[in-house]
């Protein structure tokens, strides 16, 4: 059994890490997860599995992680606090570790009003930062919330997200610091389209020495079309797509826009590799996982280190 997180090993060695996102299907089909895993196999060190993203019901993150694990991949178990209370969350953390899953990403999650079950009760028993703290306590002190001892501690590399493009901007770094204090060991950011703002954010993080306390992976989303760029700019909460990117996507004919989206993604990765304090990238190709190998190759991040 794989004892250590592959992502942790790559980052600890000082290599520039690549993670990729895998969205589970809106159905009970395991082959969808397995085939997405096989597409990404060898091109990403670890695979994030989203947890009912945008509050849309999908095959559960834990099961999809187990399927990927069985395929020999290193999954990152994404967990949101929107749908489960502290009893269920801690139970899932133990279950994930028992299944050999070695990475967890703690999030609050998109609000239920955005999804296909807007009448659902939002749980929000605890928030993402409290979840990070809880998982850290479970792992390091073998204790659940309240201090009761576990018979065996879960073994997990603990991650969190941060959005350098949300407001209030100055407070975003303070929030990153709080996540690090709570126990986050790696951070995956919101999709980066505004490199200048990202660079400002990382400078502020470096001023506080956070780049030495936590691994930061920059978020990358290849755009499929100019329409997608406009949609993300206007409709997706917490997303910033500058006018200049939308113009660039519009400047090429529709049948070339995917290529242009890939080019922007590759250029962004190359730029991020030059940014001190960035330890890797997290590629979120939404329902377009098959493009990831090309992006990783063109960004000269292939082959991935063997660890």
């Amino acid at each position, binding site marked *: 059994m794989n004892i250590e997180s592959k992502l942790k090993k790559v980052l600890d060695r000082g290599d520039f890490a690549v993670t990729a996102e895998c969205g589970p299907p809106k159905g009970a089909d395991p082959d969808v997860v397995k085939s997405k895993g096989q597409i990404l196999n060898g091109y990403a060190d670890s695979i994030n599995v989203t947890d009912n993203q945008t509050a849309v019901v999908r095959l559960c993150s834990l099961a999809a992680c187990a399927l990927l694990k069985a395929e020999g991949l290193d999954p990152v178990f994404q967990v949101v606090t*929107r749908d489960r209370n*502290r009893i269920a969350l801690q139970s899932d953390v133990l279950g994930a570790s028992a299944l050999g899953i070695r990475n967890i990403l703690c999030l*609050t*999650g*998109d*609000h239920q*009003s*955005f999804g296909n079950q807007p009448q659902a009760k*939002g749980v*929000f*028993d*605890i*928030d*993402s*930062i*409290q979840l990070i*703290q809880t998982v850290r306590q479970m792992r390091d002190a073998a204790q659940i*919330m309240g201090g009761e001892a576990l018979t065996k501690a879960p073994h997990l590399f603990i991650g969190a*997200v*941060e*959005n350098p493009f*949300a*407001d*209030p901007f100055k*407070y975003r770094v*303070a*929030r990153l610091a*709080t996540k690090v*204090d*709570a126990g986050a060991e790696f951070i995956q950011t*919101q999709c980066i389209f505004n490199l200048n703002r990202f660079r400002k954010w990382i400078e502020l993080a470096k001023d506080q020495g956070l780049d030495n306390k936590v691994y930061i992976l920059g978020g990358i989303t290849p755009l499929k079309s100019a329409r997608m760029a406009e949609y993300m700019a206007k409709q997706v*909460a*917490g997303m910033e797509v500058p006018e200049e990117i939308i113009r660039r996507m519009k400047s090429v004919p529709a049948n070339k826009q995917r290529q242009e989206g890939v080019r922007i993604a590759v250029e962004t990765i190359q730029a991020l590799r030059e940014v001190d304090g960035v330890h890797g990238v997290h590629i979120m190709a939404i329902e377009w996982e098959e493009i990831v190998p090309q992006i990783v190759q063109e960004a000269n991040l292939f082959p991935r280190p063997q660890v």
Partner: protein
Amino acid sequence: MITAERKPFTEIKEMIAPYRKVLVVGCGSCVAECAAGGEKEVGLLASALRMDAKISGKELEVKEMTIDRQCVYEFIDQLTGVIDEYDIILSLGCGAGVQAVAEVFPKVHIVPALNTKFIGETKEAGLWIENCRACGDCKLGFFAAVCPITRCAKGLFNGPCGGSRTERCEVAPDVPCAWQLIITRLNNMGRLDLLRKVQPPADWSKQQGKGPRKIYRKDQRT
């Protein structure tokens, strides 16, 4: 105050359809303040019911009555002797009022004419805003008097989330981001340091621990 809104007329009509004698009971406290269940609203609803009955040729007797508080026994007692005369009681009290009246009169059929909404404030004429969830463990002192449980859509104790843009909540663009308000107020007070500490999870047992909550005060017992 506790705020409420009147139910749609058709829903009210359906509830009282099998009955001939209706007592419409208002409440002079919170729901009168938010213009949902006071004397005036009782009058309006009773008139509408009478008019509707007349148009549809139905025989219906509607009596109006408003008491100061439907949630306190001393006021509920004013209904004694009157309430038995009617087939159905249409209460314009909040959920607490409807249940308190029902408990005093075990044989009376009482139905709500209002949807009870929230604990809130009158922001401006015709606008009420929710600002307290009665969690039983007030932490406003840490959050610059802005309640994140109520005013942040995700109830974050360690916010803001990643969806806040231009000081607005991601869920509804007309809602200010509670965490933007908290940070601004703490900044004004020079107390941003309060946010350096990770706020521990809430103790929800104080809100919904063992069924309905109660306050027992020995010094108030007679």
